[in-house]
């Protein structure tokens, strides 16, 4: 047992002087004993792994049983810095990164990547994303000896920078944080390196929720992506707006977009119970957001146009003819225009509100009562410094509709329909072929990617403001969240809405075709004109979008787009 204790000491402590047990020996033991790391650690913990005490290299004191056992690990990292303690900081990220190094230690010897330099390109949103990764990877760098250079991009610059790199042959990064919609641009052109099997093992890929399993995350049958995020839009509402005696006078939050619009109109002129400011209903972002704003009109439209019998809902898969001007889409645009026409339905200046504003400046700050957003609004409501509504938020899936449009028949059907929007399909970490030039660099790049996509570290990312949301079945173990200080009912509500959306049979999954954000971006411009009243009707607005989309399809190449669109739909 002494041996075991030393071994644990190594896992928990990890300073260079302590390199007593060689990684190979450790692995050999694991193999021979057919013992999962988890069981081994658990067993050891019970015998008295108190020996594993010791400060992490960041010099922050840890509580005793910290390094002992994976369950403990998961509950310990969830306490950094703790719910209600405000936004985590760099020191917290480093701490979490240090604690989650276990899987890396199993596969990589200390100092194995000495001299390797990697370049990591990713986002730099509000000091999350890359900033987070920097903190997480700092201990990884210290352990493996590799050095990482960072390319931080603003979200608005991201697409442009990526496209320019590809088109001019200046791919200057080894690891890239990328959204699935860009797989057409990168994997489709052979820029990515296929994932080695040991990475799949390390990140425990079978734990991913159903919709993130192949074909999503693969291209031509090959896996390229270390998933670090799962995306879907869920419906968030203010619980104090509904129930007996509430200002809406309704017992239940709305189930359909028709109800959402009714409520929003009724609320005009009333007063918010929490803030005392004017009350508002659903918050449509009316301003573009570098293409991302289009997801929000999609949220309304999917209920009308995503027919269970047809996986396609943006284009006709055979011709790439846009469906965006069919009656279902036009109805979605018309719904927004109706609210614009209702005095007081939206906060003043809504025409200048982009999605970020609606979620973080408005909803979390107590303005407006209904919102569609990615899952991370749920954890942000409780843990972010910006939020004042943590106690009164409820969640549900994307509202449905009383009727749906069938584009095959060209008719409306009076059947209830709902279709959660899997907007963006989540961020992933990919390794480029540039890193694959030699085996050492390649292994280093994949090891870094796998560290970020690890099972335990991802739990922390989905619980705290990180820009990422739950994407693994193991994230839905409510006890863990409860133990971390979340209120059980809240967590079930919040995580349940995500789980329901992920597993929905009629989920609307976006096409991973090249240039998809060009379509969104031009649609935003036309929508902005429509919302400002420069087109005479919703139909005219939709027709303008369709015309612009046809132009883009022709420019990128209609035949290749059709083929890729069908492939991404699994047709």
């Amino acid at each position: 047992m002494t041996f075991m204790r030393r071994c644990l000491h190594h896992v928990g402590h990890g300073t260079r002087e302590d390199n007593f047990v060689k990684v190979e020996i450790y692995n050999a033991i694991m193999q021979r004993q057919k013992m999962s790391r988890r069981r081994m650690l658990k067993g050891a913990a019970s015998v008295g792994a108190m020996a594993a005490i010791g400060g992490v290299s960041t010099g922050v004191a840890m509580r005793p049983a910290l390094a002992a056992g994976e369950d403990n690990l998961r509950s310990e990292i969830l306490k950094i810095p703790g719910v209600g303690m405000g936004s985590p900081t760099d020191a917290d990220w480093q701490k979490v990164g240090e604690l989650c190094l276990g899987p890396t230690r199993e596969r990589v010897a200390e100092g194995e990547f000495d001299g390797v330099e990697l370049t990591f390109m990713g986002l730099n949103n509000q000091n999350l994303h890359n900033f987070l990764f920097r903190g997480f990877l700092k201990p990884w760098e210290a352990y493996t000896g590799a050095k990482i250079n960072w390319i931080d991009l603003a979200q608005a610059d991201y697409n442009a920078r990526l496209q320019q790199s590809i088109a001019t042959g200046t791919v200057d990064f080894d690891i890239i944080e990328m959204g699935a919609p860009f797989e057409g641009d990168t994997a489709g052109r052979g820029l990515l390196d296929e994932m080695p099997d040991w990475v799949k093992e390390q990140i425990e890929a079978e734990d991913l929720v159903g919709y993130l399993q192949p074909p999503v995350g693969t291209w031509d049958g090959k896996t390229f992506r270390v998933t670090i995020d799962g995306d879907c839009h869920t419906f968030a509402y203010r619980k104090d707006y509904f129930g007996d005696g509430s200002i809406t006078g309704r017992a239940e939050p709305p189930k359909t977009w028709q109800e959402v619009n009714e409520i929003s109109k009724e609320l005009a002129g009333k007063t918010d119970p929490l803030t005392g400011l004017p009350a508002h209903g659903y918050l449509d972002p009316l301003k573009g957001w570098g293409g991302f704003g289009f997801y929000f009109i999609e949220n309304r439209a999917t209920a009308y146009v995503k027919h269970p019998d047809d996986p396609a809902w943006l284009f006709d898969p055979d011709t790439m003819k846009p469906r965006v001007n069919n009656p279902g889409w036009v109805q979605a645009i018309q719904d927004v225009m109706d609210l614009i026409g209702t005095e007081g339905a939206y906060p003043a200046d809504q025409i200048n509100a982009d999605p970020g504003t609606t979620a973080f400046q408005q909803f979390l700050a107590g303005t407006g009562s209904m919102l569609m957003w990615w899952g991370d609004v749920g954890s942000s409501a409780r843990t972010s410094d910006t939020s004042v509504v943590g106690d009164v938020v409820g969640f549900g899936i994307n509202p449905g509709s009383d009727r749906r449009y069938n584009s095959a028949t060209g008719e409306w059907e009076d059947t209830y329909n709902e279709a959660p929007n899997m907007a963006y399909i989540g961020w992933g970490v990919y390794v480029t072929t540039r890193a694959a030039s030699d085996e050492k660099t390649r292994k280093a790049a994949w090891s870094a990617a796998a560290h970020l996509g690890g099972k335990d570290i991802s739990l922390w990312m989905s619980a705290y403001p990180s820009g990422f949301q739950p994407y693994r079945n193991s994230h839905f173990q409510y006890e863990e969240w409860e133990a971390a200080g979340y209120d059980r009912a809240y967590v079930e509500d919040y995580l349940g809405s995500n789980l329901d959306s992920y597993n929905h049979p009629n989920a609307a999954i976006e096409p991973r075709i090249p240039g998809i954000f060009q379509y969104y971006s031009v649609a935003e411009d036309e929508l902005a004109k429509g919302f400002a009243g420069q087109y005479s009707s919703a139909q005219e607005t939709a027709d303008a979008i369709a015309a612009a989309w046809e132009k883009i399809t022709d420019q990128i190449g209609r035949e290749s787009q059709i083929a890729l669109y069908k492939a991404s739909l699994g047709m």
Partner: protein
Amino acid sequence: MIRTEGDQLHVVTADNISDRRRLFGKSLIWGSAALLVLIIALQIADQSGRVALGFETWRPTLYAYVLWAGCVCWGQVILHGEHGKRSLFILPAALFVISMVVFPLIFALGIAFSNWNLSSPDGRQFNGLDNVRQMWGDPFYWNALRNMVWYVLAIVVEYAIAFGLALLLNSQIRARKFFRVAFLLPLMLSPVAVSWMIGKSMLEIRFGPIARLARELGWSSPSFFGSPEMARAMIMIMDAWTFIPFMMIMILAGLQAIPRELREAAEVDGAPAWRRFWEITFPLMLPVSVTAILIRIIFKLKLADVIINVTSGGPGGATDSVTSFIFREYRDRSNVGYGTLLAIVYLVLIVIAMTALMKIADRWMKPRY
């Protein structure tokens, strides 16, 4: 090649330049030029795979260009003696600008007349005048051009304010230094930071201090970006806020340079203040005003940062400037061929407009001198 007759600075120089020296100078220039051409040729051959020389970058060409530029400068002195030394003043800047602008500009022209969407697997394809035709029918572009006219017209108001502030600063006041520094500071700030801290934070309609002030003043539901006119006005104000100091300094500098005797003479005359201003100060300030306004127009024509960050051109394109629209076309839609064409057309338009303006200004100002 270069003659220097009609100089402001008259110097009598007697350079005896021997034939040998002349030959040396010429061979220096032509020799380095030949080396440059040779290296370019070698690099092209290497690129196209005809010879394998193992060039990784075009750096050798860059070095050869720098060498050639140096030789040209030196050669001028050798060939023309004193006169050559004079051209040394301007040659480095000229060679620098030519290398940095002219070559990329030629390349840009190539891009402008091609169909190049970065997402397209086919890459760049020459498409003649298709982009021009598309531009002709692009309502967003024309809308942006129309907005630019409004933005430029707003300079008149900025100018009036700047002039007023300059007059105040130039009058007998206490703490002049403080006011001067305070008035100057907005010029120093980064447009990106300005658009966030003012456009997003201070103009936030619920808690922003400006919105709260507006409520105090009786505007019950302030909305700064709701209507097209209002949104455009807010953009103009934010832009004016950063650039009024610029015009103000130039005018203030001009005011301080007015000879004291002139003003005193006018005061002794007993003319009322506003007449003194119109008949003496303002005419004297015309040249500097014109310069200030021209520079301001040039800066205004590039207006983009604030718009991109605050309104993205909305509502419905009411605040779009040409540059911010091209940025969207170029950045969000990766449509670089078309975007570059729009930019080049804009360049041509404003070069024509600026030339005309400068000529008019010249002619208009001359008789008054």
